[in-house]
């Protein structure tokens, strides 16, 4: 287990609100988590749960307006990223923190060859000469397993397949030896056999380069195979946080439990009927005054409608935002 006493990234009380014509949307609400050096943190949630917006908020990647990062601190190497000006932020983005996005086609520039795109951060952040950058770009392509790297540097994104394009994206993100790599659904657009290749590659690179990784996904199967620790997001909040084995063995939040039950298994006994989570995810148009999972929860209590639960400790490494995990409520109900 990586050392969590000295986190490389420490996010506390992050709150992001979007101003829309229909009023405010509270997309990220009081999100806190930390990341240890060399650790792989999985972030799971459905669309609209706030997982991508959280990560974009960290690096000021959301256009403002409509986005407004209203509260919180993001401590990275002794600095609060939310307080940095644009020039300082640019040095962090793509430098000490790398980003891999979901769709490799739209995040690569179609009119430049991939060599140029890998060399850009090297020249900007590391001040390398053209020659040195070209040599390093070739190394990087080899590192992510693209055969015939020297030739492929001259190719344009459309000449690569989806899996290869995602490898190029990873090469760009790794260019400046980031301490933290944020990967936002990097395998969602890929087929399962290609996804398996990328997952193996990421595990390999993490071991080789020792960076910390935040891996955002909606796929619990991917999380189970790759993460050390997991946070589960729902309705803009962290509802559960635990080491990966603990989360799958003893999920404490009703949402996590339901989510684990709804996905059909590829091995073992086949369920006659899928368990479903009734209803829809919440609309985040106001500051939540109740538990966001209230309407869909099968074990809701009166208190869940009155207050939004904070994260209660299940054990030293595991917490859940559910009144069923609150010792006071349990004592009271018992």
């Amino acid at each position, binding site marked *: 287990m990586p050392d969590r006493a000295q986190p490389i990234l420490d996010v506390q009380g992050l709150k992001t609100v979007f101003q829309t014509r229909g009023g405010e949307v509270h997309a990220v609400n009081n999100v806190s988590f930390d990341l240890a050096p060399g650790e792989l943190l999985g972030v799971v949630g*459905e*669309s609209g749960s706030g997982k991508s917006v959280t990560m974009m908020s960290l690096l000021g990647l959301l256009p403002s307006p409509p986005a407004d990062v209203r509260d919180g601190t993001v401590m990275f190497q002794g600095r609060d990223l939310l307080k940095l000006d644009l020039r300082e932020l640019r040095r962090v983005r793509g430098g000490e923190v790398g980003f891999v996005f979901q769709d490799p086609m739209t995040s690569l520039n179609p009119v430049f060859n991939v060599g140029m795109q890998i060399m850009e951060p090297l020249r900007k952040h590391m001040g390398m000469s053209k020659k040195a950058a070209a040599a390093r770009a070739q190394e990087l392509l080899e590192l992510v397993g693209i055969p015939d790297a020297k030739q492929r540097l001259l190719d344009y994104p459309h000449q690569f*397949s989806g*899996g*290869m394009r995602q490898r190029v994206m990873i090469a760009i993100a790794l260019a400046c030896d980031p301490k933290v790599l944020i990967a936002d659904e990097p395998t969602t657009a890929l*087929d*399962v*056999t*290609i*996804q*398996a*290749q990328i*997952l*193996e590659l990421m595990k390999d690179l993490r071991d080789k380069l020792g960076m910390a990784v935040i891996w955002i996904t*909606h*796929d*619990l*199967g*991917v*999380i*189970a*195979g790759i993460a050390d620790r997991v946070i589960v997001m729902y309705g803009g909040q962290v509802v559960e946080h635990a080491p*990966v*084995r603990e989360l*799958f063995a003893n999920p404490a939040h009703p949402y996590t439990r*339901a*989510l*684990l039950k*709804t*996905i*059909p*298994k*590829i*091995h073992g006994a*086949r*369920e006659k*009927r*899928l*368990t*479903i*989570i*009734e209803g*829809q*995810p919440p609309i985040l148009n106001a500051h939540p005054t109740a538990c966001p999972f209230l309407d869909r929860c099968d074990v809701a209590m009166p208190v869940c409608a009155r207050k939004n639960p904070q994260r209660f400790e299940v054990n030293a490494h595991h917490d859940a935002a559910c009144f069923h995990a609150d010792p006071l409520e349990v004592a009271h109900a018992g």
Partner: protein
Amino acid sequence: MLDNSAKPLVSVRDLKMHFPIHAGFLRRRVGEVRAVDGVTFDVIEGETLGLVGESGCGKSTCGRAVLRLYDITSGQIMIDGRDIGSVKQRNLRTMRPIMQMVFQDPQASLNSRMTVEAIIREPLDEHTTLSDAEKREKVGELMDAVGLNRRFAKRYPHAFSGGQRQRIGIARALALNPKFIVCDEPIAALDVSIQAQVVNLLEDLQEQFGLTYLFISHDLSMVRHIATRVAVMYLGKIVELAPREALYAAPLHPYTQALLSAVPDPDPEMAAAKQRIVLQGDVPSPANPPDGCNFCTRCPQVMDICRRIDPEYREVQPGRWAACHLHNDMSPAEVADEINAAQTAG
């Protein structure tokens, strides 16, 4: 051909769907994309046949071709005793009510300027002579059947969530009491917690109306849940077809084995213990498939013969079909003969 007691509702024989490639100043035909290249299968009445494969393998094209949304290149298609394959498009119209489709993207497949009622009612307007009141009642019944509130009949698609939109698409497909529905990735665009709702609905409707499904999906776990039998496609061909349990427990074709081993397991203990077969490289282009077996460029168990002779798709065990030389009972002498024959021919 599969089980003599069970009657196939749909039977497809050697279906080919090739799309021409035109290039150059004169737009001459320079080749073709063999999206579906000789596919044979039956769908038994009342069953769900799962059709799985990765993007570009031709599974969606296959589903659309079976309903003659394309003019097929060659092959036979029989649905409910009628020859669908060779009928002219304009004569197909009267046959449409028995075969319907649910599309992948509920956003794109619903007209945003029509109310839910108008969308579900359109097939009734086209194909039936019901009175206005009868149609309205039928639309109401369909909305009940798919779990949509009748009060929302006058709303437009944008007012509904993804899962609800997919329910509208399903209601429209059911309007003419079809026997056979092609579901083309009906849950791919939906969130995990909503996917289960739609799958359960499809299962309920199948029971209630005696429907037969061709369920096209890339989600192998979900297909294991919903399908009776499963066909696996790779580069325009079915490489394996088997009853669900047999396929998942003991896949015969190396591609099926690799595909199943690549599915991430939502269980950290299993994931850690699992020996994954990671395929190297990418799928070849269907415009330029390799010689011999289509999978020979990536197959971990490739043999000499695979690069020369395309394996025959045959019943290797009762009810189990595969196209692979590993499951060929030819003697080594016969194999040598075949190789020689191919060499002289080539």
